[in-house]
């Protein structure tokens, strides 16, 4: 029992540490090729599709695809404080609310949702003109949830 106590104490101490190096004032660090997506457990490899959100307590959730980002809080009933996405073309981080979100089924994204983001309306509309699909408001994007994917058995 004497040996057990320090380990249990260490357990409790570790459990109290926040994960992932989240920063309250910016996007979290993502180790590309290392970090798994918090929803699908696929490895987050492509910066242009990677996304993240912070919970009100500052915990970071990382995703390989915008579809996973919108699905995860609904599936886990988790509150979202801030969403971060990448500009699909420049790779720059964008706040979700500042991004122009495009859903273009012909774009091949890591989880096949065709969801990408860009930083300005002109490029977003050009992308839709080029690849098809539609523009989404941030609210409509976050409301997609698991519907970011087609119903099973249907082509997107």
């Amino acid at each position, binding site marked *: *029992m004497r*040996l*057990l106590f320090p*380990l*249990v104490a*260490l*357990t409790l101490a*570790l*459990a109290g*540490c926040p994960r992932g190096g989240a920063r309250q004032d910016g996007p979290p660090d993502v180790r*590309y*090729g*290392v*970090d*798994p997506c918090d929803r*699908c*457990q*696929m*490895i987050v*490899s*492509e910066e242009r599709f990677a996304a993240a959100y912070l919970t009100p307590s500052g915990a970071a959730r990382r995703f390989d695809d915008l579809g996973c980002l919108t699905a995860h809080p609904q599936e886990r009933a988790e509150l979202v404080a801030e969403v971060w996405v990448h500009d699909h073309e420049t790779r720059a981080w964008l706040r979700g609310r500042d991004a122009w979100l495009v859903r273009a089924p012909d774009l*091949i994204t890591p*989880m*096949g949702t065709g969801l990408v983001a860009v930083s300005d309306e002109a490029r977003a509309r050009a992308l839709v003109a080029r690849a098809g699909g539609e523009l989404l408001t941030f609210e409509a994007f976050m409301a997609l949830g698991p519907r970011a*994917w*087609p119903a*099973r*058995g249907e*082509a*997107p």
Partner: protein
Amino acid sequence: MRPRDALLLLALLAPAARAGDTWTVGPGDDLARALEAAEDGDTVVVDGGVHAPVVVTRRLALEGRGWPVIDGGGRGTVVKLAAAGASLRGFVVRGSGSSLDDENSGITVAAPDVRVEGNRVEEALFGVSLAHARGSVVADNVITGKALDVARRGDAIRVWYSDDVRLERNVVTRGRDVVLWYSAHLTVADNEVTDGRYGLHFMYTDDADIQRNRLVGNSVGVYLMYSRRLRMSHNAVVGNRGPSGFGLGLKDMDECDVTDNVFADNRVGAYVDNSPREAQSFLIFRRNLFAGNDTGVALLPSVRKNTYSENAFVDNGEHVGVLGGGTLGANAWSDGGRGNFWSDYAGYDRDGDGVGDVPYRSERLFEHLAQRHPELKLFVYTPAANAVELAARAVPLVRPQPKLLDDAPLVAPVVPAGVPRGAATAGAPLVLSSAGLVALAALVIFGVSHRGPPACSGGTPAGPGAILRRRGRTAGTPVAVSSDVVNLEAVTKRFGQALALDGLTLTVRQGEALAFWGANGAGKTTALRCLLGVIPFQGRVTLAGHDVRRAGKAARRLVGFVPQELTFHDDLTVRESLAFYARLKRVPAGDDALLARLGLAEHAHKAVRELSGGLKQRLAVALALLGDPPLLVLDEPTANLDAPARASLVALLAELKAAGKTLVFTSHRLEEVLALADRVVLLEGGRLAADVPPRDLGERLRAHATLHLLLPPLAVERAEAVLVDAGLLPTRTGAGLSVEVDPAEKGRPIALLVNAGVPLADFEVARTGAAAGRS
């Protein structure tokens, strides 16, 4: 029309070319122009040369002879097959661009019923990419990606909106993923995928068959998502150790059958998330081998309706993990009275039906803590983890609720059959490892898969003092110098109410050979299992100072074990078997000297199935000697051999002993005990009855009488069971059974049979003398 030079035809405007013609393109000819000239149904034969990228817009068969090259020069896509029914065969396709955005590919297929067969795709960002290509076939290609960081690579094969596609016998390396999305009725068989991110990634791919593939050394072996009715069988999924490191991942899958696969040396053998997804659905894992994974199977706590039966869980860091903690009560761990084999199962099989008589319970406290707090996995295999388990045993209050309960655990593993050995095109270590892992049981059941090389290996037999040179539980941690290699202190083991070992205390000195002798149930094998530290017991066992429970890894590193029942992969050769186990143990592979020493040199290239029983036993000894362990533990090493093979093996073991090995073995044969042992420990009812020189064993045995029991034929089996249950050792004769008994207890077997209602026709005491012994 005869084959003709394409340019000549072009010059003549080929007015007579008709469908079904054959066009020939030489090394200096313009392939693109030939393709323009050809018509649907034509064949274009390309004889060598290096050609520029092409787009095929007609139903043509492109046939390469002498490996003609189509070179993209590092720009764009190299070959595009855009006509239904086109085919490409026998080409080297190389040098695509490097744009992920534009999906630069070696070969793209954009039409149905296309065949891409027998090509080499090299230095391509995406290898073969299919979209809207229903009914196409991609077979027998060798696809090698660009030497880029994995995140910058494209997919080696991509199947997109293409039903009824077949991927067969492709060899893929250094790609990102093999992606199969939004496509139904796929067949993925006999492929080999190495050094990628996702060996196979299925999404929205109902009704797929995944068979006999080898997924080796990727970040993740196979990931199945959002699909139903997938059948995965006879695949080798080995060494996938990326950040998540799943051998197989399942997310939102329904009605899947995962059968006869090998999942070995992955971080997680199989990861299950929300599968099955639907209430009336199911997920079946049957006859798979989970060996040497950090976690055999990891399930999210919400997982329900999984059925696991006849799988073998062997030497995983933890066999089953619940991510986030919890229990797995809503899943079935047996089916039809058959559970799974668990290498740490500590029960027994009294009636010999192959199913343990006490349930298997997974309830390790440290695992429980580590699942709740993954950071603690840093402490796996450390004294801290052992301390937790010790505390859990000492203080039952802190024992966690069992994660799972298998009420019909198997006492021997079911080995998956038909798992691919691997192609000659892959690196030898990988080839050997995946298939060889199938040959799990004999070596790893008792936990002798070494996690690291010996501190001081060397290629020569361990001579006197070797045991002391090989020590080192951790760097800089001295171990008490002692000539006692084995030390058992008051070792007691109970199986339920049965006392299998009762306070056994003994030591074995370096270079000594000790034999355990006793009847069935006397405790011989239990003593060996305690010595190996693979079952819980009371008391203490150390091997050269390493406590087998507190420092089990270090202790077992010193042991080579030869089990009584051998299980090999029959398709492997002797040399391949050695190489595989060497990789599993992470020790140098045995060299020719080892083979020669074991009398196996001339059989090195034979498949194990071709070996005699004696040679198989020698192979088992060779495997035990990998890494040159100083201590050999053998359980009835000659039990299944004929007389010449027995003599040969005993001579071999004598040589090993003379070379300095310490031997601990069980036996029922007096002659081999006399030939090998320095001491004999007689066990009776789990207690040490005597510790004597071998010559004294004969004297003790001579005090026995042989009782012949004459039985009706139909009663023999029942009588045998009754006597064995009573701890006696009957042997069958033509007329019934004979049994060795103490002269003062000649009536005991008769009373046992009468009380059990077994008809006894007659009996006689034939002689007194040396006991035959059998155990």
